[in-house]
């Protein structure tokens, strides 16, 4: 099937307006008889389910946690971008659009990104109206800060808990629709397959995680808002339950998977402390507003951080990228940290860490406070004390989190940080309307491949999730459902439902009956190691080929030797995990194939064979200016389709942050 991205004709900055005023509509009476299934209640899913409920559709929303409020979006720390230009610092829709396209290393679609920038302001308005308590200035107006890859202050935030506050806002709107009877919520449920009838998505098979029962649910349309798949690496900043299963099942039912190898490795995370490590904790990018990153100038320097004088410290980001300094995009910052550690300048016991230092910021803020309060003859100790209070008001919860995990006080000694898997730009391929290649099946939020190209800028995932759910899908889905108003609800004893349920049932029983010797966890860890070593921050042809072989072998081992305790018809977290890890293994293989196919470096995808003399990513625009959309063709068989990327407005150039 040829890929049609359905980008409307016309000028870039009028496409969306035009689309909105010409797309088909569903009248209110018809909406009441149309059912929509939403998988996931993170920012994307909760905002979509609430908004569609408000419009009058009958919505069923699913999440695997015990409450929709606990989706992984809750953990987002730093902030959300919007082109409000409240700071009068030269921001505009065009600039946000441009920064995002450039930050993504020219591998995203212009039309989608422009729409994202256009609706970004509405998101902030909507959230404030819901009661999201963003940070404010003394005058009562909203406060902003900077994130990487930009030179303006356009990031809105609520301390280090922005995701929490945004999700609570969306969750409350969702619960309001539940109370009104427009949304039915299914928590502790996991979608395990898509049901297709006559080629269209018509429902799902879900497992009730409390009783273990399989359930069939009909929908005129299905929305996958299931988040990202960073946990394919085992260790990541994602929540423990984050998984690819919903998206992967959709893929196996015909939805193409876009740019699976595009992974974001976040530069500032707490380093691994030992083999027991179950997840990694992010230290928000917002810290790079005030923290300075450095390593000792001397290799294998064993002195403590505070014993190393200023002139023996290498502030390598400021040195290499004077224009953006510590605020270069994530992919650039991560590779630079890896480069220093690989060269022997790493710090801490493992030597796989660099410092993120707040001493200068504490002093600076302390002095500003002294000035503000008009004090005189203040001792340095008092200045530092005041500075610490200011830093605490900005990042207090992050500093506390750091101390709980490491036992070190970051107000006194610099944080130790190292890059970790954080976000996946890849995901289900969608057209301009967010529809996958399966009619009636949509993907929103991190689950789709959409707007971030080969590297996402900080504070843009929250923006995209909410844009998709609040402001895009309510329009685009109508354009499809307008032609479905004559479709009556299909009873779930339809043969397609029966067959889909049987397939899920058989697979679960097959898993349970392996009764091998190795736990799901240990197999997952092994997958993660292959992925991190060979498909992580740096990739090369030989490593990727080996990884594919190793993953195939691991898959065999999984299906012949996994041990899942307990029973099918009960609350069984090990079985839930096994279902997810089985899918991660298949995805891992595709990620490596995609990385192998892409003979260039761009954004977070760094192929060692393609770099400049200074070690920067080297794109091959003549050969790879496309979205790689993979079609599932059977076990380990994938066919590549290309969506050419056309740049009408921005002229791709080598990204420079110097």
């Amino acid at each position, binding site marked *: 099937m040829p890929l049609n991205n359905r980008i409307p004709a016309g000028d870039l900055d009028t496409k969306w307006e035009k689309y909105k005023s010409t797309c088909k509509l569903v009248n209110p009476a018809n909406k009441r008889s149309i059912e929509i299934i939403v998988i996931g209640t993170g920012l994307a899913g909760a905002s979509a389910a609430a908004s569609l409920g408000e419009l009058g559709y009958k919505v069923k929303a699913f999440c695997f946690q015990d409450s929709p409020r606990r989706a992984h979006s809750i953990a987002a720390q730093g902030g959300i971008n919007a082109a409000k230009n409240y700071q009068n610092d030269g921001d505009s829709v065009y600039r946000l659009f441009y920064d995002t396209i450039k930050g993504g290393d020219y591998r995203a679609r212009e039309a989608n990104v422009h729409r994202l920038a256009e609706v970004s302001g509405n998101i902030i308005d909507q959230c404030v*109206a819901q009661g999201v308590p963003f940070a404010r200035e003394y005058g009562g107006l909203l406060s902003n800060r900077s994130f990487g890859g930009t030179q303006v202050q356009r990031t809105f935030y609520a301390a280090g808990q922005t995701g929490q506050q945004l999700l609570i806002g969306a969750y409350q709107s969702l619960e309001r629709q539940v109370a009104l009877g427009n949304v039915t919520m299914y928590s502790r449920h996991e979608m395990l397959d898509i049901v297709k009838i006559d080629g269209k998505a018509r429902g799902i098979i879900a497992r009730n995680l409390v009783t273990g029962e399989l359930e069939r649910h009909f929908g005129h349309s299905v929305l996958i808002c299931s988040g990202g798949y960073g946990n394919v690496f085992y260790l990541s900043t994602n929540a423990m339950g984050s998984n690819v299963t919903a998206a992967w099942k959709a893929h196996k039912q015909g939805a193409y998977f876009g740019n699976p190898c595009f992974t974001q490795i976040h530069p500032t995370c707490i380093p691994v402390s030992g083999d027991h490590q179950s997840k990694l904790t992010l230290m928000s990018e917002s810290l790079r507003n005030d923290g300075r990153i450095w390593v000792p100038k001397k290799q294998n320097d064993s002195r403590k951080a505070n014993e190393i004088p200023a002139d023996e410290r290498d502030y390598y980001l400021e040195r290499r990228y004077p224009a953006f300094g510590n605020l270069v995009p994530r992919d650039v910052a991560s590779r630079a940290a890896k480069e220093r550690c690989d060269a022997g300048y790493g710090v801490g016991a493992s030597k796989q860490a660099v410092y993120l230092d707040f001493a200068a910021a504490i002093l600076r803020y302390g002095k500003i406070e002294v000035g503000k309060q008009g004090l005189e003859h203040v001792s340095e100790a008092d200045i530092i004390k005041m500075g610490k209070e200011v830093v605490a008001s900005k990042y207090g919860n992050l500093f506390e989190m750091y101390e709980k995990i490491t036992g070190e006080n970051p107000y006194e000694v610099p944080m130790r940080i190292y890059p970790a898997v954080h976000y996946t730009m890849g995901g289900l391929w969608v057209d301009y309307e967010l529809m996958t290649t399966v009619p009636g099946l949509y993907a929103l939020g991190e689950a789709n491949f959409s707007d971030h190209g080969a590297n996402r800028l900080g504070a843009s995932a929250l923006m995209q999730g909410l844009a998709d759910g609040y402001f895009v899908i309510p329009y685009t889905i109508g354009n499809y459902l307008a032609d479905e108003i004559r479709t009556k609800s299909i009873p779930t004893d339809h043969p397609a439902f029966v067959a889909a349920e049987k397939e899920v049932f058989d697979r679960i029983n097959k898993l349970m009956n392996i009764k091998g010797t190795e736990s799901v966890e240990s197999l997952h860890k092994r997958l993660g190691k292959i992925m991190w070593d060979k498909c992580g921050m740096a990739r090369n042809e030989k490593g990727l080929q080996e990884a594919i072989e190793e993953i195939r072998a691991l898959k065999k081992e999984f299906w012949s030797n996994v041990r899942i305790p307990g029973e099918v018809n009960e609350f069984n977290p090990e079985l839930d995990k096994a279902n997810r890890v089985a899918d991660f293994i298949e995805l891992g293989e595709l990620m490596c194939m995609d990385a192998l196919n892409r003979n260039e470096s761009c954004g977070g995808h760094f192929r060692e064979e393609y770099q400049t003399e200074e070690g920067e990513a080297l794109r091959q625009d003549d050969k790879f200016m496309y979205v790689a959309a993979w079609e599932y063709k059977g076990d380990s068989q994938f066919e590549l389709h290309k969506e050419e990327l056309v740049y009408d407005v921005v002229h791709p150039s080598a990204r420079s942050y110097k």
Partner: protein
Amino acid sequence: MEHYNMNLTLKVWKQKNAKAAGRFETYQVKGISSEMSFLEMFDVLNEQLIAEGKEPVAFDHDCREGICGMCSMYINGRAHGPWHHNTTCQLHMREYKDGDTIVVEPWRADAFPVIKDLVVNRNSFDHIVQAGGYISVNTGNAQDANSLPIEKQKADDSFAAAACIGCGACVAACPNASAMLFLSAKVAHLAYLPQGDVERKERVVNMVHQMDKEGFGSCTNIGACEAECPKGISLENIAKLNREYMVATFAGDR
């Protein structure tokens, strides 16, 4: 940080499902690193149980960074364990020493029935929110965000209340199993903001009514909730709730 390993005895509540009777099971774990998190210690236990062909212990968790509110262990008689302002997932093993015995139970409250082992059902919290824990504003209805300035202090107070993670430790810590701290945090979050004004009276009355219906106990001002709350939700929120409730019911103009 000084690093060390330890052997521990765990007494853990095991309960097959909501209907079955539960009991404590005793386990030994060896070589636990002081750098592990409490839940990573449980991972070690479960891996060991799986290897021995036994059933692992079911427990809730997701973010493991103290924000989703999923984890919920009652550790040596304290909700979320001994650390102040802390969730179970952020408790680290350097708190313990070699040879310690640790007793772990689920949240205990009628409104939080056990699902399995340490996992409980907290849907009652969602029901309380459904009763009014929101501002009724449909998507697309909003005015420009800066057209409504809000005093910084009020915004900060609202945020402090909105920081509640809905974990239920306040209920588990309370001898009456009252949900007042959770409920008050939501009421206060919205009551500090001008956007929340319109529905202010209805909200508080309906939410309090729903809380009673869910089978939570009543508040007798013990304060155990505040002491164990991982997010430092203050008792002042309960005072605020009471004022809101008084105004809403006294005026009689609902």
